[in-house]
């Protein structure tokens, strides 16, 4: 990497800052804004002293929380408060499917559809967890639909209530449920109070299946099913002000949802029942087992796809033919997303890749002819990967994150996304007034079409007010300009007229001096340098460590989480396989204890 990285001023004063983005940009960033409205990143002075990146000794871990200082691990025993989380929509759906089969989801689809889709916070990338009345209002319908689905089928009724449910004498069926499937649903044995109420429902003057439906409906509405509430052992006397030990069942629940986004499977519950979730080695073994399940892999892939911006296909159907020439675009966007997921799966689970390898591997699984053309190889026809051409490598330079719906790439989007997600920089939401003012500063259309994309964006955002943020955003996007709107490598930019016809070319310039979150600058010759910096640097690894933590903990970290994140960071910097890093993060000592500290 030929870039210069220099340490300069770290923090400026916060300011509610303006940014100069087009309307679409501003709207997207408005959604992104939220907690980042106050940021130092755009006000700090960018300095350069010429020190070479890649030649420095590893820096200490110093990823930041928004508006906060560097993290410093001072007490490995501390951990921040671990809130009891409601099941997300995904977790509830996975749980219902794992318990009752895919048909249960279909049966409950109407009310499941009333739950808001699970989202990642656009700023923190932690998964949002909220509880509105409308969400609670959907629970009874879901419970009853699933219960009805079960009791209206002999085979399903038998699974849940035992053989006796199909016979004439159903006495004892509810006991079978309480001692068996009921425990799977609630993830622990039913309490005496629950058993009493279940018995009351089962004793109504109605046919057995009606009563069984009522029992199941209740259990599936129980807050102890829908809420991963942790209360520890009632008789536990080790409680102190900081927290208390979890029961083995609560540990199992944490592990299961952290790893698979679903309820504990029978093996995990059996381990809890046998009190075999006390030792770190036992816990790590379970975590590793679950990581290698389909649900475990899917969750890892989802999180990494989100981090790398490869999760969502873009509509490329409106790109002019001059840009897509030679590329089969039918089904291309979905193929891009699918290939990225397969790549993650192969790297993390098959190859046991490190973070560096994930960002530097040239493997491609592009079967789609169009995508293979974009990646510069023949379509893959076997399980063996092909090799991507050019200076493209790793997860961050795959098409899903590079594509754009318009003929000109979105330098601003690319820059913002990369800064936010990969560099953990803080980009404040745009000020509408400045955005409006900037519109008046755009080049006339006829001039803009003849200018390179880089020059047009640079001109558009050249005012001092804009440069507060675009001084950071633009260089990042510039470095990625060697990839066109299809994510295809290009040596020059094709200039198009209003109707999409070529009118000339412009040179591609991917050199950039990119401000970093700590106030230093990174000089790069292009995207490969930028990605290599992320893979090699302490800061790049620290940002990724922070994201891994958020994905697992489903919340934003606090200072009390410093030690956990620092441990992840150290593992990443030591080139440990990602799957090992994840297993260690999920299975560390904190999984055994609920902490009550103030977030």
């Amino acid at each position, binding site marked *: 990497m030929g870039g210069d990285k220099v340490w300069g001023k770290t923090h400026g004063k916060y300011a509610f800052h303006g940014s100069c983005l087009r309307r679409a940009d501003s709207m997207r960033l408005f959604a992104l804004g939220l907690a980042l409205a106050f940021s130092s990143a755009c006000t700090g002075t960018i300095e350069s002293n010429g020190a070479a990146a890649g030649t420095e000794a590893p820096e200490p871990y110093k990823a930041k929380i928004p508006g906060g200082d560097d993290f410093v691990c001072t007490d490995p025993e501390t951990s921040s408060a671990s809130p009891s989380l409601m099941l997300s929509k995904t977790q509830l759906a996975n749980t219902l499917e794992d318990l009752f089969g895919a048909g249960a989801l279909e049966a409950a689809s109407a009310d499941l559809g009333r739950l808001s889709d699970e989202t990642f916070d656009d700023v923190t990338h932690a998964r949002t967890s909220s509880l509105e009345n409308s969400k609670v209002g959907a629970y009874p319908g879901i419970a009853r639909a699933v219960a009805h689905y079960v009791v209206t089928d002999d085979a399903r009724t038998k699974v849940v209530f035992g053989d006796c449910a199909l016979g004439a004498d159903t006495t004892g069926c509810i006991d079978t449920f309480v001692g068996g499937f009921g425990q799977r649903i609630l993830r622990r044995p039913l309490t005496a109070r629950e058993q009493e109420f279940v018995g009351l429902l089962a004793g109504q003057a109605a046919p057995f299946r009606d009563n069984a439906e009522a029992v199941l409906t209740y259990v599936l509405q129980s807050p102890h099913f829908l809420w991963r*509430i942790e209360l520890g052992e009632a008789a536990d006397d080790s409680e102190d002000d900081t927290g208390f030990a979890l029961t083995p069942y609560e540990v199992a629940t944490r592990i299961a949802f952290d790893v698979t986004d679903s309820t504990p499977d029978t093996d995990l519950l059996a381990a809890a029942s046998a009190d075999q979730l006390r030792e770190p080695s036992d816990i790590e073994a379970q975590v590793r087992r679950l990581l290698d399940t389909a649900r475990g892999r899917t969750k890892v892939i989802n999180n990494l796809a989100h981090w790398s911006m490869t999760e969502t296909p873009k509509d490329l159907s409106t790109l002019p033919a001059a840009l897509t020439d030679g590329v089969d675009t039918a089904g291309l966007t979905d193929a891009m997303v699918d290939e990225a997921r397969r790549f993650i799966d192969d790297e993390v689970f098959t190859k046991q890749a490190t973070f560096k390898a994930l960002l530097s591997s040239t493997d491609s699984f592009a079967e789609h002819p169009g995508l293979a053309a974009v990646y510069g190889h023949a379509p893959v026809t076997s399980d063996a990967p092909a090799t991507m051409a050019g200076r493209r490598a790793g997860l961050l330079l795959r098409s899903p994150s590079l594509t754009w719906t318009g003929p000109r790439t979105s330098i601003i989007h690319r820059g913002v996304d990369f800064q936010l997600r990969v560099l953990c920089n803080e980009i404040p939401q745009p000020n509408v007034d400045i955005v409006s003012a900037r519109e008046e500063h755009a080049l006339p259309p006829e001039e803009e079409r003849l200018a390179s994309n880089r020059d047009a964006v640079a001109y558009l955002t050249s005012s001092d007010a804009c440069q507060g943020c675009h001084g950071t955003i633009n260089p990042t996007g510039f470095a990625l300009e060697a990839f066109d709107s299809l994510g295809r490598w290009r040596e020059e930019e094709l200039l198009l007229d209003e109707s999409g016809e070529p009118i000339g070319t412009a040179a591609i310039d991917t050199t950039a001096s990119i401000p970093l979150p700590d106030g230093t600058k990174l000089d790069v010759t292009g995207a490969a340098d930028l990605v290599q910096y992320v893979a090699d640097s302490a800061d790049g690894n620290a940002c990724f460590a922070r994201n891994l933590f958020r994905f697992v903990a489903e919340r934003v970290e606090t200072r009390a989480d410093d030690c956990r994140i620092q441990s992840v960071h150290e593992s990443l910097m030591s080139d440990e396989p990602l799957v090992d890093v994840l297993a260690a993060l999920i299975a560390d000592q904190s999984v055994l204890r609920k902490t009550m500290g103030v977030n």
Partner: protein
Amino acid sequence: MRRNRQSVGKEQIKKRWVSRRQFLAGAGAALTLPPLVSLMPEATARAATGKKVRAVLYVGYCGIDMQHLVPANPTVPTQAAPDILHKPLTSFGGAISRVIDADFAPVLPKMNLIHGLSLCGGRYQGHNATVLAGTHSQGREPTFGRSIDVVMEKSSGVYAPGDVVAVKALRTSDGLGSTTMSFECSGGVRTQPSFTFGDQNIFNQLFAGLKPADAEPEANPFPDQMIVDRVLDDLHALENNRRLSSADSRILEQYISGVQEVQGKIRANQLGLGPKCEVPSIAFQANTSGNSWQFPWNTQWGVKDAGALYDNIMDMIQLAFVCDLTRVVLISNTHWSNQPISSSSDGGIHHDCASSELAADRQKWGLKKMLRLAKALDQTSDPFGDGTLLDNSSMLWTNELGAWTTAHSTLAMPAVTFGGGGGYFRTGNYVDYRQGPLASSTKKELGRPYKQLLQSIMLSMGVPKSEYMNYGDGKGFGEFVQGIDQFGYVVGDAFAPYAGTHNDALPFLSIG
């Protein structure tokens, strides 16, 4: 059945659904057995002993200069008190002002146009999200008091123990930051109740799950009620568990609120609804998926006809009152045209109104929606009492701010009321509370503390003074500051004449 949204009235109430319990009560009558109150639907039984009053609160954004709202030259108004002038609205003839045009004629006898109410204090408050709490927003989010929708929702004067509704307070907003209008503070912590966005979500909240009550009773009724009661018990059992973190406790509180709402719906469904209760057929403008409000620039999700959307909402409120599915409604709305809701020029706050006239015209859009509801309520007999639903409602149209401009003024707050509040309100008047005859010219526009109007509304709803006094700055409801200090407009004793009465109802209008 598709309802014609252009003609909402009692003739539209075509279905008469009778619940299982109503059926039983009716059967008793048919057999000439004495009607047993215990067999009546709970709501009907309550109607026999007391009326219901409903509140509808509409808060707009942008402010309005009062000259566009009130009569230009009210000739010879009657003086009710040294600082109160009034004149019947019907005496003006035709359009009363730029905003109050001839469309209002049918309900003029049942509305009031109020001039001369100001929030005490008046210091710079940014966007005023506290008007319904009778406080100005100095510091943006005061950590005391509660908005009156919350007060009423939680008051046993509005909902007696055992009263069953689908939702105690229906709150809706266009989602552009206007949900801050409702809040409550406890222990210095400000929390906001949830809002329902879009007409289909409102429908689901109010009407989903209701069954035609003339359907055959189930042979073995599913124990929904039993289960939801138990779920609520399970949650309450967690309330004092010392192992809940503060974050857990917040979730628990929300969870309980949600289950209580479910419980209300189930009870409403099982116990029977009002005697003229209809589940409306609505052409929804905003579906239940996606952020239809919050990403209005996305045409896939955006609301295409905001006028139709609000018409739907108003129609559902009318029908919800018929069914007694709620008694408190809050609409907090920054939108001001039928155009698709977007982030550009179709809605906003006071910074987005380019002129005094434009601001007035935009406020008129929202007021016309309230007018639509008022007319509909006036054409609907109250199933639970005498008169029309409008007679037994207290509707307030107001704004986050007073005078237009970007000045964040909370002096001369606009206020239009509809409805008699169950006989509590004197109606049909233009009322001028400005202290003109008494005070120096600098005080002329101030009038009385705005919070007195809020207190009157609460009293009309059955909230006792002793209760609302608890929600304020320690001196009573809301906030009472004698002076004004805003943009160089400093009057140290502006409200001094009301130091002893600011916790009372608004005089003249309050006769209950």
